């Protein structure tokens, strides 16, 4: 598997995917993806992962752009495999760190007590515009984290969906693209059914992202959805029954008083 894949390049705007695994997790490969958007001489880094891969990712990024030019680092949510390396990245760059407002005050636990470095996103999300292009932070709350965002890049038309669409053990992860949605689906099912809070949130998220024209959905673990698989995934996700719909699997039934 390549550790680096170019997802988009039109000469001005570029998107690179890195697939670096935390060595501590080597035996159970999580098929983690990190993403870098570059336009002109500025960059945005998406879900850079734990402190364990900091050095390797820093090196990989340096081959494309001086890491000092990373203007924003976006953390879709607070999980350690997404945001564990905040302390390292805050030292190595002077980027603004973008994360749900829900988590910004928890950043001290990751090693940052300087709130002037953090942009805490409000629940409805937000947008960073550059020229005619923009990146949009799309609400994805409770899918699975209560303060969670996806990121849409208007130029490459890639939706970076965080844990939504993640599949860890699919054979199709080897080349990081879903070729056959139906055979990939079982690997999506187990994870999403347990981790996602409720179908109501799935629907709300699908409604939000359908406002945008999407060529690719790029989750933080596993394979990417391209072309017609984007719609196949959205239609599947929209109908997905998750934790709330299977409450009886998580909690014991009510004890009868009779």
């Amino acid at each position, binding site marked *: 598997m390549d550790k680096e894949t170019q997802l988009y390049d039109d000469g001005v705007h570029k998107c690179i995917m890195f697939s670096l695994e935390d060595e501590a997790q080597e035996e159970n490969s999580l098929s983690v993806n990190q993403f870098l958007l570059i336009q002109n001489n500025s960059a945005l880094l998406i879900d850079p992962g734990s402190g364990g891969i900091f050095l390797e990712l820093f090196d990989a990024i340096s081959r494309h752009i001086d890491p000092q030019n990373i203007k924003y680092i976006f953390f879709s949510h607070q999980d350690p495999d997404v945001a564990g390396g905040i302390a390292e990245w805050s*030292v190595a760059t002077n980027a603004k760190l973008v994360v749900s407002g829900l988590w910004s005050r928890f950043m*001290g636990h990751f090693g940052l*007590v300087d709130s002037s470095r953090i942009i805490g996103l409000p629940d409805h999300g937000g947008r960073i*515009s550059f020229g005619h292009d923009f990146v949009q932070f799309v609400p994805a709350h409770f899918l699975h984290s209560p303060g969670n965002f996806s990121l849409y890049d208007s130029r490459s038309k890639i939706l970076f969906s965080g844990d939504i669409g993640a599949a860890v053990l699919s054979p199709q992860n080897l080349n990081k693209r879903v070729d056959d949605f139906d055979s990939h689906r079982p690997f999506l099912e187990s994870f999403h059914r347990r981790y996602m809070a409720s179908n109501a949130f799935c629907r709300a998220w699908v409604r939000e992202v359908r406002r945008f024209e999407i060529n690719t959905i790029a989750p933080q673990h596993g394979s990417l959805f391209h072309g017609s698989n984007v719609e196949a995934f959205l239609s599947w996700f929209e109908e997905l029954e998750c934790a709330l719909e299977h409450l009886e699997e998580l909690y014991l039934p009510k004890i009868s008083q009779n």
Partner: protein
Amino acid sequence: MDPNLLKQLRNALHNQTLLYVEDNVGLNANATQLFQKLFKTVYSAADGEEGLELYRKYHPTVVISDIKMPKMDGLAMAKEILNIDSETKIIFTTAYDEPKLLHKAIQLGAFDYLVKPMTIQNIVNVLQRYTQELYAQMHQKLFYTYLNNIFNYQQNLVLLLHQETVVMANQPCLEFFGAPNVETFQKRFLNFGELLLEHSGFLYNHDSIEWLQETKNNPGKLYNVKIADDKGESHHLVLNIQPIPNKAEYYVLSLNDVTELHLLKLFDANAMEREAIKRDKKALQGLFEMAKRNNAKIQIHNLYKGLSITNDGIIYEVEEDHISIKTTLMQIKAIQSERRLVLVSDIFPMFIESHDIQKLDFDEQTVRLGKCSMITTSPTRRQYIRVTVDESAKATLLYQGHKFDADITIIDISIKAARLTLSSLPAGFQVGSKVILDLVLGTPQQPLIVNTEAEVFRLSEQTRSYEAVFTYELHGPIYKYLVDYIAKRQMYLIREFKGMQYG
């Protein structure tokens, strides 16, 4: 049928009144009985004339009526009713074989229709649609009532924007711009950008900034603007745009007139002018007053062993000889430890510093500050994270090929620079001098050795020693090891800071 559905309908309709008009006596009695289970009151009539009479008397919110009836038919009655109140919702009952009548009913403005013979299911369906409509209308009404209230209780100039059009503007706003009504103001607003006058540090249209785009991109951020009123006098206002949740492209724009605080000069690029006013206690008080009135978010900066600790706060009290700020417990702890602080805000022209910490209240989460002063560079705002080093860390210097023999201690380091104290300086040593800097950091078991070329960036004389800042460019593994060291050190200092006791 889902029993919950009927329950929901009853909940939605229990404060609604219905007029039911039907000339078939049996049907009228049966249906009335059903409607009575759902509505607060049901008035039933046998023809249009009687229906109209009851309508005039009780003004029900919804009417269900047959079309073909003696004396006055349903259509004639509906026309009269809609003349009285066009908001009344009228639902006709009609047979399949009467498409012409149905067509007329629609033209008249009927809300919906029920096909005869009526079933409970289709009655429920129609009433559900009606309750949904009610719900939507109520929300719309609440939305506008809410806005109206906000607008009219404000002394600020407030306007509601939809995309780039003014939907509403309050009286103070119309008066300020000398517009007799919203329509006139709307036209003037098309060129609102031209009304924003150029002033240093203020928001106005220029090459890289278009005011509306800029403010929409930064909802909630406060901007200083200068606008001339209808008499041509310049006013200093604080502008702020907030999007309305769940209403795409709707924004509330507010302008707070702070002209009487006489702060315009403070923002002037003219340094002489600025220096003079910096010493003016009143100007500082004016700034605080402006921040307080606009509920401006300010940032409070502190340092703990080089670690930058920053949190948001607000100014909630401004008095002759002191101000009070409210902030997080963590920040109050940092202020207690450092005995000073720096205040930063988008709407301040400079940083504000205070060493006069008069009172720390951990219960109320407030800090009272006495004397404050304006400073142009903040000693706490840093491009790169700096930390103090561990106790065993050592530094040596090689200058012009010789090891420099003096007591050297490391104050703090970042990935770009190190700040050292030197007991003495070698001859010719000055800003720009090149040295070889050798730093030994970390534990003796796992030392991190940084050996690099460095340049003297700043040099200052202290009472018994010198302080020098050396800058360097590290590459390769050593750069990353230093990042790792600083990150870990930062984490350690955070734990140490958090472990300190209050009070």
